[in-house]
């Protein structure tokens, strides 16, 4: 079996959100390529991962049914947010990110760091309002915008595509990470975090 065939099988069996799936596949591809370059024996490296079905099951079993539902809700919400952002930016600024670009931005945000900033401060709350304003294009009267403007921890889950890859969106040139916590939603400006350390 080649690396490509192994990854194709794994892709078919992985039952996780789209971002998580992409990350898992990239990571395993990188590992297998490394192993092939070092050992020259790809079959041994593949064998150490186990069958694609078994490996997919190990990743899938880690995500409870509840989280899987959130993952799909999150993916849908992220897509919706992307469309809304695109519309908002089309009205206000140039170069609106397309949904596909949004997904790429989410993956590349913070250079893949998952610990950008994890402290909720008044300053970030203020920025969160800016984020909502950008999403809504200044029209907070829209029903979905009212919901966004009054985000609770439960609603915030809708912005998280899956528990391991926090939702990230690009608004007004900044990349934001949105993460639900027990005590509310955290909005982190990843561009600041990556220049200022782990936060």
């Amino acid at each position: 079996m080649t690396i490509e065939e192994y990854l194709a099988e794994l892709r078919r069996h992985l039952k996780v959100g789209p971002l998580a799936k992409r990350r898992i596949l990239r990571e395993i591809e990188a590992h297998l390529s490394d192993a092939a370059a070092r050992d020259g024996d790809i079959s041994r490296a593949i064998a150490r991962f186990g069958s694609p079905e078994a490996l997919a099951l190990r990743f899938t079993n880690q995500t409870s049914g509840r989280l899987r539902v959130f993952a799909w809700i999150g993916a849908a919400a992220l897509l919706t947010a992307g469309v809304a952002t695109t519309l908002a930016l089309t009205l206000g600024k140039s170069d609106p990110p397309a949904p596909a670009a949004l997904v790429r931005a989410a993956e590349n945000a913070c250079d893949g760091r998952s610990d950008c900033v994890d402290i909720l401060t008044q300053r970030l709350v203020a920025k969160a309002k800016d984020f909502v304003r950008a999403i809504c294009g200044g029209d907070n009267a829209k029903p979905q915008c009212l919901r966004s403007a009054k985000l609770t921890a439960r609603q915030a889950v809708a912005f998280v595509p899956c528990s391991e890859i926090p939702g990230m969106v690009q608004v007004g040139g900044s990349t934001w990470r949105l993460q639900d916590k027990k005590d509310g939603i955290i909005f982190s400006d990843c561009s600041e975090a990556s220049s200022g350390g782990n936060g």
Partner: protein
Amino acid sequence: VSREELKGHLDLLLLATLRDRELHGYALIEELRKGSDGTFELPEGTIYPALHRLERSGLLSSRWSSESGRRRRVYQLTRKGAAALDERKQAWKQFSRGVDLVVQEG
């Protein structure tokens, strides 16, 4: 080491191997093997899902790193992970001391 024997200790081993450094999966497996004098030669199919689970628990963080033109996902302990490592180390010491005492008595 059988999977059953490993169960419950894998997290501690991974957290301890990542103490004070960041490693990608390949290097982590190597360090585990070398650090345990060959006792823990864990397969990739066990390590990667565990790393993802620990990251989701907030004990690890990760990022893409480019080295000699190759992209790899590297992992490091978070503050929460460092605290969890200390806790689990204490629990392990207590546990292993208890086992030692009983086994020596026997």
